[in-house]
């Protein structure tokens, strides 16, 4: 314990030496050994017993995480690492590798400047790795690579030196390709990982050893020796000579940027305000004495202290007891406690300064993505983009009505702590709808309500979230929608957005929400860069998800006054499409004409909004509505003799098999499967493979629902939502 306290003291000292700080994350696919590696790093830095490292999983401080053996939440830990007599402060943010929690990964990436991509030497890079790396690169987070589980390569697969090199090369090439594709253009060459440059390390986190070219030079250990150590069951000795924490933290210190370096190029990328302002300059310089700017990346519930907000300080220092604004909040709030995180422990400190990760209590209006400042008029960070949209919903209600108030509180804090979870309540039935990234995500969420909050709940069968879209257009045949008082009419045409633009919209390239009039031109130009009609797109009114609203009218009097209401009507339909009240996707909506009552009182919200809604819904039906369903990428690995049963199971569920590589005795099935067919998949795959298959999924976006299923699916949704069974036609929206 003494060593731990000593470390905390050193950490507080280094905290203000900004070029001696490294903020990093570990990003990888599920089960590639991320939490094991994190524990090694923490143990190496003296924050837990070395024997426990690799086995105790400090970062999995959620009971559930340990039980399920996967990391649910990104927790953070600070540690001190000494390189040739100089202390460095490493702030580590752990990220979940499971596909269902992609939201956490994005948020963690915003808080760090560098990341260790963890790839399994046996399995290579996996679908999730690509997602994670892409998320890191978009946030301008510099990657280095660690190839884990090398011991298995040597001992289980009996691979020799040249073969191992080949395998490494394959992984490195794949990672570099990803970096080249997704890194910002000016950095993609510089950021390529290379064994010779020391940006690649390999080893075994479980056996606590690691190695890199610079460390080989330093320690004098060569490849042949590594093979010997492994073959002779002497990995413990190897770990003494080349501890993985030392190798990796040396690499982090040497190759990853300090906040002082990183904030200079990252702030313009992640912060949207005026870069010439003092506020921006202070962030770019990472000035601990400048104005406070802290972005919350995560909220978690502490049983004693309540909500704890973890965030990165970009500028200034946050002190306990001071009054701060959570931007968007109603009033200033007092910081009750400022702490550093060490696994499950929060260590209270007097202040945390720029470039570091801080944990705060007392800020009620903090939520993931919120910026904390001293002045309520400061500009916050842009909203965090999500790379995955919720695809599955369950309805949840407390079994006993007396738990209702507690239940409502529990939902509130869940929604705050997990930004990838959407919580809404059905006003009529009182049940809550939870929308999440997959069946497992929601299972864990309801488990939390039951176990952590002690509320017994009833959970409905999972429901797939579909999307509505169109397959044709109604160009030249605008649909007229009238206001209830008939004095206002709107004429709308719709057409599908090009696929590549939908992808950019989803990535947040053009932003989301209403477009301010003064920004319309630049937003339009941006669309122009992607091959859209620039002049048309400059007339943009709003973006909602992957849908775009354009004012394509000419010289309509008073239209500007109803702009906000038109956008509201558009947003309503984007939320609930005409066919099954499912969200709309990938539609360009053009307002081509309008007739407005010249008196403002006759075109209020209760008139204009329904008129816009009607005209947009009618236009969508006229352009032939279609349904899109969510798909997931799937990869199943199983021994050759049982793979037949697995592919059969996939075929039964409308799965598409894209590739079936065979590697020795193991075969893999790589393909896609509709989420709608995935419920209960784990049980049936287990049965089909006698429990020997390992499988992973990842959201793969939306595809056109086969036409023959359209009526069946729509009827099911409408029935479930209590809508009339007959499908609405154009006539319904005409008057």
């Amino acid at each position, binding site marked *: 314990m003494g060593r731990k306290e000593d470390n905390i003291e050193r950490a507080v000292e280094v905290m203000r030496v900004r070029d001696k700080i490294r903020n990093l994350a570990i990003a990888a696919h599920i089960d590639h050994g991320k939490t094991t590696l994190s524990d090694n790093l923490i143990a190496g830095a003296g924050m837990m017993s070395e024997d426990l490292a690799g086995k105790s999983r400090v970062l999995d401080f959620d009971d559930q995480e340990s039980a399920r053996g996967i990391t649910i939440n990104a927790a953070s830990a600070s540690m001190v690492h000494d390189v040739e007599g100089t202390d460095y402060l490493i702030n580590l943010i752990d990220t979940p590798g499971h596909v269902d929690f992609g939201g956490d990964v994005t948020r963690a990436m915003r808080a760090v400047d560098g990341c260790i991509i963890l790839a399994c030497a046996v399995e290579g890079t996996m679908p999730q790795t690509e997602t994670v790396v892409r998320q890191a690169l978009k946030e301008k987070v510099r990657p280095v690579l660690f190839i884990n589980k090398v011991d298995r390569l040597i001992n289980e697969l009996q691979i020799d030196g040249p073969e191992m090199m080949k395998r490494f090369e394959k992984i490195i090439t794949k990672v570099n390709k990803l970096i080249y594709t997704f890194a910002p253009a000016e950095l993609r060459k510089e950021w390529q990982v290379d064994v010779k440059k020391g940006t690649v390390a390999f080893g075994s986190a479980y056996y606590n050893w690691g190695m890199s070219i610079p460390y080989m030079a330093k320690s004098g250990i060569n490849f042949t020796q590594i093979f010997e150590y492994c073959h002779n069951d002497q990995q413990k000795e190897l770990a003494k000579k080349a501890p993985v924490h030392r190798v990796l933290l040396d690499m982090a210190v040497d190759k990853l940027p300090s906040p002082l370096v990183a904030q200079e190029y990252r702030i313009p990328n992640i912060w949207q305000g005026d870069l010439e302002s003092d506020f921006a300059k202070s962030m770019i310089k990472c000035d601990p004495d400048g104005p406070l700017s802290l972005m919350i990346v995560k909220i978690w519930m502490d049983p004693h202290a309540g909500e704890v907000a973890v965030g990165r300080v970009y500028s200034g220092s946050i002190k306990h007891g001071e009054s701060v604004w959570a931007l968007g909040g109603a009033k200033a709030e007092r910081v009750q406690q400022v702490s550093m995180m060490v696994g499950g422990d929060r260590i209270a400190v007097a202040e945390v300064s720029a470039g570091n990760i801080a944990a705060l209590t007392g800020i009620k209006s903090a939520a993931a993505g919120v910026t904390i400042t001293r002045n309520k008029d400061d500009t916050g960070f842009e909203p965090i983009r999500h790379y995955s949209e919720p695809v599955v919903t369950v309805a949840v209600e407390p079994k006993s009505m007396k738990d209702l108030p507690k239940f409502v509180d529990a939902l509130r804090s869940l929604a705050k702590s997990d930004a990838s979870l959407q919580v809404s309540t059905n006003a009529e039935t009182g049940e809550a709808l939870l929308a999440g990234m997959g069946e497992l995500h929601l299972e864990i969420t309801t488990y939390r309500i039951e176990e952590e909050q002690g509320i017994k709940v009833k959970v409905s069968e999972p429901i797939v979230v579909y999307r509505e879209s169109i397959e044709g257009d109604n160009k030249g045949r605008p649909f007229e929608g009238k*206001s*209830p*008082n*008939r*004095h206002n009419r709107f004429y709308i045409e719709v057409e599908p957005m090009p696929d590549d633009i939908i992808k950019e919209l989803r990535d947040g390239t053009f932003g989301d929400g209403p477009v301010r009039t003064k920004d319309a031109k630049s937003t339009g130009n941006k669309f122009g860069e992607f091959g859209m009609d620039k002049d048309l797109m400059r007339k943009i009114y709003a973006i909602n998800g992957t849908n775009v609203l354009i004012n394509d009218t000419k010289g309509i009097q008073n239209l500007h006054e109803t702009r906000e209401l038109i956008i509201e009507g558009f947003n309503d339909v984007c939320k609930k499409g005409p066919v099954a009240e499912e969200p709309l996707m990938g539609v360009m909506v053009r307002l081509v004409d309008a007739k407005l*009552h*010249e*008196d*403002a*009182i*006759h*075109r*209020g*919200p*209760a*008139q204009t*909004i*329904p008129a816009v809604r009607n005209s947009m819904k009618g236009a969508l039906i006229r352009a032939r509505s279609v349904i899109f369903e969510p798909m997931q990428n799937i990869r199943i690995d199983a021994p050759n003799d049982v793979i037949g049963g697995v592919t059969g199971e996939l075929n039964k569920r409308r799965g598409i098999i894209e590739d079936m590589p065979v590697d020795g005795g193991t075969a893999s099935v790589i393909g896609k499967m509709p989420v709608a067919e995935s419920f209960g998949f784990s049980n049936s795959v287990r049965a089909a493979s006698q429990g020997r298959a390992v499988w992973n999924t990842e959201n793969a976006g939306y595809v056109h629902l086969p036409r023959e299923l359209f009526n069946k699916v729509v009827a099911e949704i409408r029935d479930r939502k209590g809508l009339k069974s007959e499908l609405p036609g154009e006539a*319904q929206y*005409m*008057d």
Partner: protein
Amino acid sequence: MRVAILCSGGKDSAYAAWWAMMQGWDTVAIITIGIKGNDSMMFQIPGTFISAFQSVCMNVPWLPVESSGKEELEMLDLKNAILGKNDNLNAYNSIWPEHIKKNQNLDLFIGKLKIDALVTGALRSDYQKTRIERMCESLGIISFSPLWHKDPLEHMNSLIELGFEIKFISVSCEGLDKEWLGTSLTKDNLSQLVNLSKQFRFNLDGEGGEFETITVSGPHMRNKIKCSGKVCFKSGRGIWEIEEADITQC
């Protein structure tokens, strides 16, 4: 002061009529525009013939004006009526609904109106007010709008407190469903209306055409009007079609 009251049969014009009487002015006629088309930007359409019964209850002559509802012609039709250029009997017969029994005591106004002022129930619609003012100016008379920019909640409350009985005969805005049609405004459903108007952001006093009303009794009327009707509601809007109407003796 000799005045005429522009009356649609609804709550605001009834209030305006009561207000004019309280000023001690001489009310010469009740003017009602009957729209033959489907729509008007300016005037109420359903149930306007109720003004005829109101004029009987107020003991004031009734001046019906027929109009097509075409935006550019409406005001001209009204102006011609005031100048006595219209055939009022013809207008009466033309706009009167076939299934409603005409009242024997109705005093139909014939000839040119000699008035100093026109009183209207305009609330906040600049469109209505500027058109009326322009017309009055051209006739050399003045216009009064006693309810102009009165607080909507205060207005609705005062209607109930002063003893006006008003019925909803049309709804056309999001948030108002067919339950409202044919019902009378009370303290209870007013609070409900207030909540809806906040939720759906419409005008509490119906000034944007959210709903239309008829006044069946009030402090300025000697008798009550009794009527029955049926609800017709379709795609977000509806009317209460008056099937029978008459004056009760009391």
